[in-house]
């Protein structure tokens, strides 16, 4: 696919597990909404021509290997939450990979990185 400079950033949920998201939403509804609202800020930012590495935002952090976590913010008594995404510059797509809490982060990160390796690195 030829990248189109004017093409706007969008999302893809094809690599995400629906059950994981349904379960998380049920257990942490406010955090779920906050994480996605913050992801929209990231999308807006990328649309302005910036790269993920240039974004200095409190709720955004790199996990390495192209994996980024988007956290919740300003949710009173919130459970530390992380929405995992991969930004594909070529297609201008933010791939949503997983969601979890601080307790499940080791496993979530491992799985998300595995997905990135299988799906995107093999193309290189």
């Amino acid at each position, binding site marked *: 696919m030829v990248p189109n400079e004017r093409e*706007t950033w*969008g*999302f*893809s*949920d*094809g*690599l*995400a597990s*629906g059950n994981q*998201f*349904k379960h998380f*939403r049920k257990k942490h*509804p406010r955090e*779920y*909404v*906050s994480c*996605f*609202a*913050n*992801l*929209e*800020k990231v*999308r*807006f*930012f990328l649309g*302005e021509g*910036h790269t993920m590495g*240039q*974004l*200095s*935002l*409190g*709720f955004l952090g790199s996990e390495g290997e192209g994996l980024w976590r988007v956290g919740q*913010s*300003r949710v009173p008594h919130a459970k530390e939450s992380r929405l995992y995404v991969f930004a594909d510059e070529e*297609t201008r*797509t933010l791939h*949503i990979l997983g969601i979890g809490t601080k307790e499940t982060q080791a496993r979530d990160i491992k799985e998300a990185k595995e997905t990135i390796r299988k*799906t995107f690195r093999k193309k290189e």
Partner: protein
Amino acid sequence: MSKKIMSISEVAGRLAGDPETEKEVEEEVRNSRLVTALIALRARKGMSQKQVADAMGCDPSKISKMESGNDLNLRWGDVLAYVRSLGINMSLCLDDSTLPAAVRIKQCVMQIHDLLQGLVEIAKQVKGEAEITDKIHQFYGEVLLNFLLRFDSGYQDLLSVIRVSDSEKPSLPAERHEAVGAERGSANTDRGLVEAR
């Protein structure tokens, strides 16, 4: 791989399997427009949170807090200080939805007038620089023509939804322009407008 989805609320709702989630995310995004705009302005200026904080004379954690919340968490004074630290002027637009439509339309037109006056102020800053002045003339001409076209189009749209008697209709500049063109035997004055687009 699945197709690209353009709406964050749609993707959040889909993954949660719950339409209520979609509405909640949509509302939160709507309530974060100003915050998002502030972040975008900072990014355009290439400034870090720390640089903005230094300019505002506050701790960087305050900037992080502002940017991670939504518009409802913002303090007016902080917003003013934030944009000022970026060297940006801010104008406020208040729209009273209880006013009659005719008054609101008039206010919109007055806002356009104010914006055009703003152009005069900008032009004053480059007065005397021939190259820039020429570009402004050229640009202003194009903008004016396009504005007239859109103004006319907007007015026609308005006429299609409200009833205005012929005696009440003002003569639009574009119409006058066309009339003058016709009087002078110009084949197609309108063509000139389109070409300037």
